[in-house]
């Protein structure tokens, strides 16, 4: 059994195999693997006894349920107006340069994906970014770079 298969089996055991469990199961796969492969979606469909189209339909609706491969660390920089006013563009530029990718892309070593997000709910402490589930408010370019370097170091 592949890792993904075992993961899905565990998630189905934990959350049950009703349609209402679909979101927590997909979220559980993304938490471990950062994105949903076609194979994973087929397996989930089978386990819940619903069509694969239903699974893909749900997955493709949600920004956080990625259906294209992502890096180990997914960075989401808030781009909504207040963070815009507080300088999110500079943060994005600095990270693009540091990681040598553009927004929407993944580094060749699959360590980082750089994305933007709509309002993350920290407008009083912008600019702000989310890395996986962790939040980093009150960013400066220096601070953002330091955080990224720390992640790079820790996930080597």
């Amino acid at each position: 059994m592949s890792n993904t298969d075992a993961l899905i089996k565990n998630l189905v055991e934990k959350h049950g195999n009703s349609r209402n469990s679909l979101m927590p199961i997909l979220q559980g796969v993304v938490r471990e693997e950062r994105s949903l492969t076609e194979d994973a979606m087929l397996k989930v469909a089978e386990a819940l006894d619903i069509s694969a189209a239903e699974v893909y339909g749900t997955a493709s609706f949600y920004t956080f349920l990625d259906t294209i491969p992502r890096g180990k660390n997914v960075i989401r920089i808030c781009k909504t107006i207040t963070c815009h006013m507080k300088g999110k563009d500079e943060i994005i530029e600095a990270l693009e340069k540091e990681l040598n990718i553009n927004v929407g892309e993944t580094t060749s070593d699959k360590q980082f994906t750089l994305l933007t997000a709509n309002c993350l709910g920290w407008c009083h402490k912008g600019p702000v970014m989310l890395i996986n589930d962790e939040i980093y408010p009150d960013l400066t370019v220096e601070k953002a770079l330091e955080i990224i370097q720390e992640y790079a170091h820790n996930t080597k």
Partner: protein
Amino acid sequence: METAEAKNFKKVDIIFECQDCKPIEVLDTNLQRKPDDIILDIIDSGLKGRGGAGFPTGLKWKFTKNESAEPKYVICNADEGEPGTFKDREILDRVPEKVFVGMALCGYSIGAKEGIIYLRGEYNFLLKDLNKKLEKFNKQLKERNLDFAITIKSGSGAYICGEESALFESMEGKRGEPRNKPPYPTSEGYNAKPTVINNVETLVYTTMICNLGSDKFKELGTKDSRGSKVFSVSGDTPIAGIYELELGMSLGTFVEEFGDGDTKSVQVGGASGHCVPRKYFEDTIIGFEGIPTGGSMMIFNSTRSMYNVLHDYLEFFTEESCGQCTPCRVGCQQLLEGIEAVKKGERRPSYLEDLKKLASNMNLAAKCGLGQSVANPFNSIVDNFKEEIIY
């Protein structure tokens, strides 16, 4: 025309206050009362929903209680996606027990056994702590022989899932596409069963009304806007943050307190709210009789381009529209492309009038509140800052 007298600026400390109020004791005291008495108290307090739409909370509870279908659900809407709003996160972080008690009292009042918090995926970092506290709370409920338990379901990054029927769809494992209304959640909500869905802040106020009594709550605010409200203040202000204030003050009073001395406009109610320019500050009341707000107050000073502000909002709506109905899916795109074309000189300034009509049509024809409310920012920004949009 006679206008209602605006209230003075007054800071209030009900939501975050935790010295005197032990949430679990509020529960204990109120479990001694009849469910109907609690509901009557909430109705009497005049509390209206703090999630944006402002429906009277007590009536919502009463309608759900009166339904015969079983089971019933209590849902806490913690999807908080409206740009400029960040108070629900702070409430869940600092006083979660007050939210839990509000849900339990609602469950007791309407006869529900299950409560669910729908927490936006962006707030997943709160999960660990919340789950720990819930475990303890659920145990406390069991000790009191109250047949009610609370769990958490996470969102996955979709603003539209804050809309109540889209939220139910999401909890049912589907795309977050809003349903037709009626039926309303009070009769057919989650799993098509009678459901009370309330905003995080609303639920804390129900706890506090049960603690302080409805009279105490009614002393605050105005006839149409009882009580206080938590505001999320951001943008060009030296003191961005979260403030609980009495409802009914004028926007002028608000700006005096929070502005940086150079405030040009305030976006009241987030991206889907209204933009108020300086000349109307004094005449605008913050409350249901004036401009209602879910709490988002974004302040802009004279260095800001209102074109950029509107452009950001339209991009937001274009991305977050669920795409289910044409007026909203195509309308948002057309409004965005439209102001870009006017800016570049590819369209004449008079095209803005056509776009305003489109926004107004969306207000009539769109299926849910997202598409319906795009006209609020669009028309208020274009009307008041036309030159900035054109040149």
